[in-house]
C-alpha cells in the first residue's frame, strides 16, 4: 500500500543484523536492511568467524558464577532452537545448511591453567544437564601438536557450522523475502524527523521508518554521532576485538572442531572443519578502540595463527595451502555481555556486543530484539538490555586480573620462563602498572586516558604497543 517506508530499518548486514531482519519479516514487519550485500564485507565479524556453537567451552575459570549462569543460559536457549532456525533459513533460501555436531576442547602445558579451564567448562555443562566427557587426547582425530595435550573434553551438544554458507543462505533468505528491501551500502547516520527515524546510507539513500535496529558492531557509535538522538539512546561504550582467521587445505583431516580453552585475552587456537576438506584456523583477538574496518590482516597476525596452530593443534599446518585470510571485528562491551533490545529511545534498538559468540547467539538475539518491537517491555530487565547499568570496573581490580594473562600471552605458545619466572614477572608488571595507573608523568597520563576510554582487561595488551610509542 505505502512505498518508501519501513516498519524497521536494520543497520548492518552481518549475521546479527540479518537474523534480526529475518525474524522481523517472519513476524509480518516490513524491513529495510542497510549494509553491504555484495563485495568483500571488510571487517564483518560474521565472515571471519569460526562459527563454533560454544555453549560451554567459552566459560573461563575466572568468570564470576553469576556471569557464567547468565551467559550459559542464553547460549543454551540459542542452541536449543538452532536446528529449527537453520531449517527456516533453508526453507526460505533453498540452501541446505548442516551442523557438524560436537566440539573437542584440549588442554596442554602452554596454558598453565588449562586443567582448571577444562574443569570449569565441564562443570558448566554438567550443571545444565549436558554431557561433557573427559577423554584421552589420543582419541581426538586431527590433533598432533608440538606441545603434547594432557587432557581432552568432548562436548557432544556443541557444534560447528560453515559461517560463510550460513551467512550466504541467510542473506538470500532476507534478500528474497517479499517484506524485505536491502540497500547495498554502508549506513552513515540516523536522525529524527518528527516522529520518524531516517537512516542514511553512503549511496545517498535515506530510509524513513518507525524503528531502527543498530547492528553495525563497533561502527554504531560513529553512526549515532553525538547529538540529541545519541544522548537519548545512551548506548554503552562499544569496542571491537579484531580477529584474523585463515581458511586452509591441510594434509590431514579434522572431522569435528578442536579448540583450546580461552587464554591470554584470546580465544585460544581452533580448527573447524569446512566443506570439501577445507579447514578453518582461528583466531587472534586484539582490542581495538577505533576499529579500522578496511585494514587487511597483518603478517604478525598470520604468523601468530600459524605458530599457535602448529604448537597446540597440528604441526603439519605449516604444510597447508592458504586459501583465504579474513579479518573481523567482534563487537564487545565493557562487561563483555551483548547489547540486545530497546535503548533509552523507544524506537532505537541495539543488536550487537556478542563478542565471540555472535554466530551461536544470532537466532536468540534476533528474538530478543524483535520482541522489543512486537511486545515492548518484555525484556526490559534482561541482563543483555542496553539500559542495564554498566559500571566501569575498578582499575586496581582489572590490573590484578590482567597481568597473568599478559605474561601468558607474551610466552605463548610454548615460550618458557625459568621456574617461578612467570610469577615474578607478573608481580613486577602489577607494580609497574599500578604506578602508571596513579602516576602523574606523561606516559602515566597516556595510560590513564586509555583505561578511561576502554576500562577492560583486553586493554592491557594495548599498553605494550603504547610502550613502544612512549619510549
Amino acid at each position: 500500500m505505502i512505498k518508501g517506508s519501513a516498519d524497521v530499518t536494520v543497520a548492518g548486514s552481518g549475521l546479527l543484523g540479518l537474523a534480526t531482519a529475518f525474524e522481523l519479516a517472519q513476524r509480518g514487519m516490513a524491513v529495510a536492511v542497510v549494509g553491504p550485500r555484495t563485495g568483500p564485507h571488510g571487517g564483518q565479524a560474521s565472515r571471519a568467524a569460526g562459527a563454533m556453537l560454544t555453549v560451554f567451552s567459552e566459560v573461563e575459570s575466572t568468570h564470576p558464577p553469576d556471569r557464567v549462569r547468565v551467559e550459559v543460559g542464553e547460549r543454551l536457549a540459542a542452541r536449543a532452537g538452532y536446528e529449527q532456525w537453520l531449517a527456516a533459513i533453508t526453507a526460505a533460501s533453498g540452501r541446505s545448511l548442516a551442523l557438524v555436531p560436537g566440539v573437542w576442547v584440549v588442554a596442554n602445558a602452554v596454558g598453565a591453567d588449562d586443567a582448571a579451564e577444562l574443569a570449569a567448562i565441564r562443570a558448566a555443562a554438567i550443571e545444565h544437564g549436558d554431557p561433557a566427557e573427559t577423554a584421552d587426547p589420543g582419541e581426538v582425530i586431527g590433533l598432533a601438536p608440538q606441545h603434547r595435550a594432557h587432557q581432552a573434553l568432548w562436548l557432544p551438544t556443541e557444534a560447528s557450522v560453515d559461517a560463510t554458507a550460513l551467512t550466504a543462505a541467510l542473506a538470500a533468505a532476507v534478500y528474497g523475502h517479499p517484506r524485505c528491501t536491502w540497500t547495498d551500502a554502508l549506513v552513515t547516520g540516523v536522525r529524527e524527523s518528527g516522529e520518524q527515524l531516517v537512516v542514511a546510507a553512503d549511496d545517498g539513500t535515506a530510509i524513513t521508518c518507525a524503528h531502527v535496529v543498530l547492528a553495525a558492531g563497533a561502527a554504531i557509535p560513529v553512526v549515532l554521532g553525538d547529538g540529541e538522538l545519541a544522548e537519548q539512546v545512551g548506548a554503552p561504550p562499544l569496542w571491537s576485538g579484531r580477529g584474523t582467521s585463515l581458511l586452509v587445505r591441510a594434509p590431514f583431516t579434522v572431522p569435528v572442531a578442536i579448540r583450546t580453552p580461552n587464554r591470554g585475552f584470546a580465544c585460544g587456537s581452533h580448527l573447524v572443519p569446512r566443506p570439501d576438506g577445507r579447514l578453518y584456523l582461528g583466531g587472534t583477538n586484539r582490542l581495538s578502540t577505533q576499529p579500522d574496518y578496511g585494514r587487511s590482516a597483518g603478517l604478525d597476525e598470520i604468523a601468530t595463527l600459524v605458530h599457535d596452530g602448529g604448537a597446540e593443534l597440528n604441526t603439519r599446518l605449516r604444510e597447508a595451502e592458504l586459501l583465504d585470510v579474513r579479518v573481523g571485528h567482534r563487537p564487545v562491551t565493557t562487561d563483555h555481555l551483548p547489547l540486545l533490545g530497546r535503548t533509552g529511545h523507544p524506537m532505537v534498538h541495539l543488536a550487537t556486543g556478542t563478542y565471540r559468540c555472535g554466530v551461536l547467539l544470532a537466532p536468540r538475539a534476533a528474538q530478543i530484539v524483535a520482541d522489543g518491537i512486537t511486545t515492548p517491555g518484555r525484556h526490559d530487565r534482561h541482563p543483555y538490555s542496553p539500559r542495564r547499568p554498566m559500571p566501569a570496573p575498578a582499575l586496581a581490580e582489572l590490573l590484578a586480573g590482567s597481568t597473568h594473562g599478559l605474561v601468558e600471552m607474551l610466552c605463548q605458545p610454548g615460550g618458557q620462563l625459568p621456574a617461578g619466572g612467570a610469577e615474578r614477572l607478573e608481580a613486577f608488571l602489577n607494580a609497574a602498572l599500578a604506578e602508571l595507573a596513579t602516576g602523574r608523568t606523561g606516559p602515566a597520563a597516556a595510560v590513564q586516558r586509555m583505561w578511561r576510554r576502554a576500562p577492560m582487561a583486553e586493554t592491557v595488551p594495548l599498553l605494550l604497543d603504547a610502550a613502544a610509542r612512549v619510549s
Partner: protein
Amino acid sequence: MVGDRPRLVLPPGVGNVLCPIGGETAGPAVGEYVFRGCRLRLGAAGDVLFPTDVGVSLLAALNGEAAVPIVGAQVLDVGCGSGLYTVALLLAGAARVTALDVNPACTAAAIDNAARNGLDPGVVEAITGDLAALAGPPRWDLVVCNPPHFPSDPAYASADGLETALVGGVDGRALYDVLLARLDDLLRPGGTLLLAHSSLTDVARTEARLTAAGYAVRTLQVCELDIPLRRYAAARDVLLARLYQLRAAGSAAFTGLRFEVHTLAATRPVEGQE
C-alpha cells in the same frame, strides 16, 4: 477503481502540513486553512486537540468535490473537537450545524471558533454528550466525523480530553461502530455521511456495513501521511505494537509510521429507490 481515487501524499516527518500553525504568538495556537475560498482560523488549547492533517484531509477532499451539497444543509458534526468542520461547513454555506462532543471544552471551543470566524452564534447548536444518547428523529442532511482511531492500552491511557479525541477502544473502532449503528436515526433519507476514515480502523469493514445497509459509498480521496503520534511519542513503541496486532488480523493498514485517511461519502438511500 482504486486508480480513480484522488491521492494526496503528505511529506513524512512533518506535522500540520495542511493546516499550519500561524498568527498570534500569545494565546492558543491558531491554525489557518482555506476551504472553498473561505479562510478559516481555528484556535485550540488545553483539553482540545489542535486540528491535525487527519481531520483537515477531509476538507481537502471536499475542496475539489462539488457533488456533496453543503449550501443550506443541516449538519451534525460528531466529535466536533475545535470545531474545524463546524466552522468550515458554515463558511461554505451550511444552514446550521449541531456540534456534538463528549468533552465540554470542545463544544466551548467550537462556539469560540465560530465567533472567531465571524459566524452568527445562532447557527451553531452545541451539545455536550454522547452520540449513543443523541435523540432522533433523523433530521440532518450531512453527518461529518473524524473519529478517534487509536487502539487503547493501559501503557498510554489518560483520562483527558485529548485521549477522547484520539483513542477509540481496544480496536480503535468504538466511535465508528456507534456511528454506524445510529446512522439511520441521524441522517434523513438522501443525506450523506462524510467520514475521515483511518486505515488503522478497517476501512473495508465500514464500507461493507454501509453497503449492506443500502448506502451508496464513494471514496472521495485517499490521503497518505504520518500517523500523528506526537502526543504518544514516549509510548509509541507500545501503541505501534498494538497496531501490529491489528494489522496481523487484517484490520489495520500502515507501513512504518505511514498510513492513510480515506474520505468516505456514504449516502442514505431514499425510500423506494434502493
